[in-house]
């Protein structure tokens, strides 16, 4: 069977976000081949009327239902309640969405406040995750695929004004002299 077909199968059975690395390992094919196959699946699934959508969160991929069919889906699963976001939560999530992966000092420079508690709080809600980067002394933070699912967005790049606001390197440059 083709890589494309096998990829489609494991994304279907996984029922959770799979990292690029994990996919390559399970299918045992070179990464370039996976990259191409994922692109093909994206064009196959992510059309406005598709019932199944592929969500990409940085290097994680998950097959999910089309957010516009939420009501139909909730006949078969327990409705997930988004719950309210407080202002600091919303503000922090916004910055992490557009600028992630981002370190805590960068986030704090941008927001002008200490962010330890709010990050802990967002991680507890499963909206933000910490990533220990072995090449970097500081852990970075990024949003989770669960958060994207709740937002009904297939990819961070689909967020409004993403290109302008994803000026991560500019932010780092802007404040490194702080």
């Amino acid at each position, binding site marked *: 069977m083709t890589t494309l077909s096998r990829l489609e199968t494991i994304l279907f059975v996984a029922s959770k976000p799979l990292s690029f690395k994990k996919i390559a390992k399970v299918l045992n094919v070179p990464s370039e081949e996976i990259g191409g196959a994922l692109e093909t699946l994206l064009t196959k699934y992510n059309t406005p009327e598709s019932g199944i959508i592929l969500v990409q969160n940085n290097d994680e991929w998950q097959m999910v239902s089309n957010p516009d069919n939420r009501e139909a889906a909730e006949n078969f699963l327990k409705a997930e309640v988004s719950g309210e976001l407080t202002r600091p939560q919303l503000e922090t999530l916004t910055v992490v969405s557009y600028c992630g992966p981002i370190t805590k000092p960068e986030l704090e420079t941008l927001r002008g*406040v*200490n962010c330890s508690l709010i990050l802990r709080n967002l991680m507890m809600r499963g909206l933000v995750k910490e990533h220990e980067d072995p090449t970097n002394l500081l852990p970075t933070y990024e949003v989770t695929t669960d958060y994207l699912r709740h937002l009904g967005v297939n990819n961070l790049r689909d967020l409004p004004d993403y290109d302008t606001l994803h000026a991560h390197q500019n932010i780092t440059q802007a404040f490194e002299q702080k």
Partner: protein
Amino acid sequence: MISAVKLEKFEGPLDLLLQLVELEKMNISEIALSEVTDQFLLYLNKLEGNRSEELADFLVIATKLVYLKSRTLLPYLYPEEDDGPSLADQLKLYKQYIEASKKILILWEQNRIAYGRIEPPVKPDGFVLPGNAQTTDLHRSMLALVARLRPISALPTATIDHTISVKHKIESIYNLVKSRRHLNFKDLLASAYNRTEVIISFLALLELVKDSKASVHQKDAYSDMEVRAV
């Protein structure tokens, strides 16, 4: 000129600053910022009681504002030079994300939710002990967790006391600087009742020197320092 207008609850110093500038119906610029310095310091006073742990964050911005203000007061003392990203730039950037957060909130509240499948759990045939879940692994992992759980919430009381005092000093030096052109460091210490306060005054002065490039002149070692209001 300090308006008694009540602001909405603000989340942090940049939020407060943004609200103050918008209240004056000004665009974000250095001039606008120096215009609202007094209001900002006024709110800083109200902060002490219930939000003292946030004080440090507010002070960082306060020192930058005092610097800006002093530069507008005495522009001829400042060389024309680019000293990196300005507070105005920082605030403009912050504002962009605040605007974006409103759009994110709309998406969040639309309740368009995508769901994954609920794959029925598959039971493995027999029990397999994971290679990395021996007692030593558990022990190491538990020690790391306990270390990480060290409470992060409030700043130590000593730090708060310290920041409060620095804050008072910044204010009093700022006020002195506003009213006089020159002063002697000894004058600043006139009201100091203990050594800690002397140190704090000196720290506050350094802070001003660092941020505002206020000049300090000393004729000989151990002689009094003349602080030139910048």
